């Protein structure tokens, strides 16, 4: 670095600490060591690798964006099991099932192992040098605006390097796409509280009223919220927390609620205003705005009985503080932002802001802060592709050919890009469309830093480090690839970094003072950081600044019946399959859906009453048709769904990805209409209307639930008692 000829400011940008000038003042000792520090295989066992004795490394779970810290058990050079790292405030030693399956991502037999170039309909193996040269060649023939980069959510030094690379090629089209992101909630939170992701203290609330936020299953940071939930159940001062879940399709969280309130799809905002009205705690313009929402009208429009509204309001009034959450109600509809605003208003009225909703901390290094994915990005990219704007398209950590709503015709538009590069773990649907496929290291082989979007306590940077030697010789870490690519343009600036590891280490050491390593020598600091797997930071705490406001809050009347497509389609988001990127992990395929206990297949949840009306019985193969297409799946009669809606889970229905994913189930993304939230432009996931018809075929539903259909037949197996009978305060 010393003789690299870079000035100090550029160097900061290279290493990702730009925008953190204050924190850097202590920086002075930034020598870069050569030599690798990677895990060594058993064949050349290091002294410390004792056969039969497990070693443990801390790292970060990459199965979703929650950023749980993990601890991998390694024996004879092979990673065997992932546990939670107790030191992380996010997951405190715990993991979800999806996180457990991380090892099956790593050892997956269907991983891409070699760089591959399209030759007609087939791929042929090429060398990395050729692949890099090809990219350089294609980029030379394209202007910056003719290049687009599609990625999933990225953060940390990878984001820095990616940004720098995009700058080096003059590309300003970075689309950060996540098929299932709480993007509307972020925007609504920003408005209501001044922060996109404040801290939600479920454990401090006496009542949680959730409008479809599946915080125990898949919403934002499920492991963290699950822990909070357990505390919430134990109660504040021995008074057990009460969970009320309002949604049209029962989620895992809904299944755990004390009261599950089925609501007419899309009318959640109306119900929220109705409750505010019923509470009678609001004044001024809020009171005026909710005045029309009397319980009779609200009951009529939402389908929730007036008595129920009374009870909810009474309970909220009685037990304070409470917490109100906006989940799928916000993400689902064209008026999702309005729904979310109405719901967030409840928190203000109830005085929860500042109590159960608190300012969260964020890392001060804005360059590293997560680039949060959303679906509006997909729409812009798709528009650009449709217009033939892009010559070169990169895609990383996203599978839009699978997850884009069918109505966008994404696959067709993608074909209009001349040269598509896919950085891939598997040959997924998007990689199959690419011209060049570059194989990635698994998350358990790769180096990285990660900054979680939802911070539990203070702020933290998570370290991702290899838990073992690479399984396949020719895969590369995304960081290494980006480094190689950025060197094509800015060789001088990056020449001192042999690989991404060196880059990362240098970057961390450069700023060790701010990272809590002031005073320690480089090696000590670095080893300590890797050992812990987490860098805890004070972070900067944004203040809650949002105000209770009804300005611009207008809720549409409940949607009118659609004679042609009478049912709402609610795509189900399950905790283990999410958007389907991990569907090739067999543990997840065989792990029963908690609510239906179905495995290895998709299903159509339909209310028994509706099913009776349509003459549908369990196992009938139904054709679900929307304006954008149709899919087929088996019927499952499910009491936890509004009779006006059906639900099909997301994540299955792959026609690529691998042996455990391909051919199992149907993909409801394919039939989603292109309806967007009017305010944020986010995809309105629940706005697709469908009709169902029987195909005449019938199958036996493959599920764990036996012939008794989830009844205990009076056998006292899972027992419950009511709060008046139990005394939780004496419990251990």
């Amino acid at each position: 670095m010393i003789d690299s000829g870079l000035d100090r400011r550029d160097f900061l940008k290279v290493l990702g600490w730009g925008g953190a000038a204050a924190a850097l003042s202590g920086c002075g000792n930034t020598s870069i060591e050569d030599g690798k520090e990677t895990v060594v295989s058993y064949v050349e066992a290091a002294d410390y690798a004792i056969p039969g004795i497990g070693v443990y490394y801390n790292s970060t779970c990459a199965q979703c964006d929650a950023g749980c810290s993990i601890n991998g058990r390694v024996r004879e050079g092979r990673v065997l099991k992932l546990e939670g790292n107790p030191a992380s405030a996010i997951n405190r030693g715990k993991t979800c099932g999806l996180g457990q399956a991380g090892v099956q991502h790593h050892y997956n037999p269907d991983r891409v192992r070699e760089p591959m170039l399209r030759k007609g309909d087939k791929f042929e193996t090429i060398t990395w040098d050729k692949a890099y040269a090809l990219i350089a060649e294609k980029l030379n023939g394209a202007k910056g605006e003719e290049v687009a980069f599609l990625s999933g959510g990225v953060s940390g030094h990878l984001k820095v390097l990616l940004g720098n690379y995009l700058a080096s090629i003059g590309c300003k089209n970075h689309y950060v796409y996540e098929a299932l992101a709480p993007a509307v909630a972020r925007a609504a939170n920003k408005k209501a509280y001044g922060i996109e992701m404040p801290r939600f203290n479920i454990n401090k609330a006496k009542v949680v009223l959730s409008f479809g936020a599946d915080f125990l299953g898949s919403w934002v940071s499920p492991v963290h919220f699950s822990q909070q939930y357990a505390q919430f159940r134990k109660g504040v001062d021995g008074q057990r927390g009460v969970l009320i879940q309002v949604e049209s399709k029962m989620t895992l969280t809904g299944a755990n609620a004390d009261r599950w309130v089925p609501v007419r799809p899309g009318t959640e905002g109306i119900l929220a205003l109705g409750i505010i009205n019923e509470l009678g705690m609001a004044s001024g313009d809020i009171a005026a705005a909710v005045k029309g929402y009397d319980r009779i009208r609200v009951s009529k429009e939402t389908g929730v009985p007036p008595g129920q509204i009374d009870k909810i309001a009474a309970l909220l009034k009685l037990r304070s503080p409470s917490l109100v959450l906006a989940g799928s109600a916000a993400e689902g509809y064209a008026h999702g932002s309005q729904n979310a605003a109405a719901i967030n208003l409840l928190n203000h009225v109830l005085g929860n802001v500042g109590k159960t909703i608190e300012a969260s901390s964020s890392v001060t290094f804005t360059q590293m802060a997560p680039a949060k994915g959303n679906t509006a990005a997909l729409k812009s990219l798709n528009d650009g592709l449709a217009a033939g704007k892009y010559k070169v398209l990169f895609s990383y950590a996203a599978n839009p050919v699978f997850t884009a709503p069918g109505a966008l015709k994404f696959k067709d538009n993608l074909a209009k890009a001349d040269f598509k590069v896919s950085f891939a773990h598997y040959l997924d649907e998007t990689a199959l469309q690419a011209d060049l496929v570059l194989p990635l290291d698994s998350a358990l082989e790769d180096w990285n830093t990660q900054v979680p979007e939802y911070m539990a306590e203070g702020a933290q940077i998570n370290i991702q480090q290899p838990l073992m030697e690479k399984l396949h010789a020719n895969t590369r870490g995304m960081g290494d690839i980006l480094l190689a690519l950025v060197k094509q343009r800015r060789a001088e600036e990056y020449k001192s970094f042999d690989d991404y590891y060196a880059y990362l280490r240098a970057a961390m050491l450069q700023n060790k003072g701010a990272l809590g390593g002031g005073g320690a020598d480089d090696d000590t600091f670095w080893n300590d950081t890797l050992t812990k797997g987490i860098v805890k930071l004070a972070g900067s705490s944004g203040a809650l600044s949002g105000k209770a406001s009804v300005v611009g809050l207008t809720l549409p009347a409940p949607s009118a019946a659609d004679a042609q497509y009478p049912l709402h389609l609610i795509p189900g988001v399950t905790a283990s399959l999410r958007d389907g990127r991990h569907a090739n992990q067999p543990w997840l395929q065989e792990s029963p859906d908690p609510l239906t206990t179905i495995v290895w297949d998709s299903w159509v949840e339909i209310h028994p009453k509706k099913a009776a009306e349509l003459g549908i019985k369990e196992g009938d193969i139904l054709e679900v048709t929307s304006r954008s297409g149709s899919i087929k799946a088996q019927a499952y009669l499910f009491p936890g769904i509004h009779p006006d809606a059906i639900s099909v889970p997301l994540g299955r229905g792959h026609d690529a990805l691998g042996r455990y994913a391909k051919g199992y189930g149907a993909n409801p993304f394919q039939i989603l209409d292109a309806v967007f939230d009017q305010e944020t432009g986010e995809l309105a996931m629940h706005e697709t209307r469908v009709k169902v018809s029987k195909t005449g075929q019938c199958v036996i539903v493959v599920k764990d639930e036996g012939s008794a259909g989830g009844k205990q037949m009076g056998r006292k197996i899972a027992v419950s008692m009511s709060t008046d009978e139990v005394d939780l305060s004496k419990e251990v």
Partner: protein
Amino acid sequence: MSVNNLLENWAQFRHFHPVDDKPHDPYKWAMSIDLDACTGCNACSVACYAENNLPVVGKEKYQHGHVMHWIRIERYWDESLGVAGGGDFPEQGAQFLPMMCQQCEAAPCETVCPAAATNHTADGLNSQIYNRCVGSRYCSANCPFKVRYFNWYDYPTTDNVWPAEMNQQLNPDVTVRSKGVMEKCTFCVQRLHAAKGTAKNEGRLVHDGDVQTACQQACPTSAITFGNLVDPESKVHKQWQSQQVELDKDAQVKDQKEGGSGLRGYRIFEELRPYPSVMYLERVRESAV
């Protein structure tokens, strides 16, 4: 090899049950599961697959009832739901219950096994000796909880169960079972062994918290507590004690009392007298809504 030998072993075998003249000492592994905390998320089940080399059998075999999950999450609806009860919607949610081998103290599966392949250990586990099992499945027939899983196929050699690379994840501390043998939850006995070994080397007993089962360790809500029931310092001991659940009883204090005793602890099928080592804590329902 003699009849004396037989009689001696036999006498020992008989004594490992919780009788007064030979109490569990120094270990008796037990569990408690808080159904009010359990969300039914299935993390425990996946963790068990990872720890214990459970085969993924695939869709077709799953349909034929060949699934091998040692811990399954059952989801129950209220009896009042549906046509009979008149309820349209599960307004009180569902009820989840993790079910694995209850490590019964008087295990119905043990007495019937002709080969003595499933036995009681001194620290109160229902052990399963894969090598000794002849595959008669009598144990499964007699288990009231139906938590025993039989190897209907030779999963190690079955396509796509552990294909190349995937097999590298297998836990070397746990046998990979071959066709024709019975298996079930072991309370992660390999972890117990390791912990006991470490403690022994250090000249002490296993402390509470030294060892966790895989399901317990993963569980995001910490619904599962595991430990040594005869260690008065252990959480599991304290929980059993505060819930007044006793190992060798077929009815508990709370069953005698009229109305609410405020206690949530119970064991499933206690009246059949298998003396399960897993205590469940009842789910609580809010009466105010």
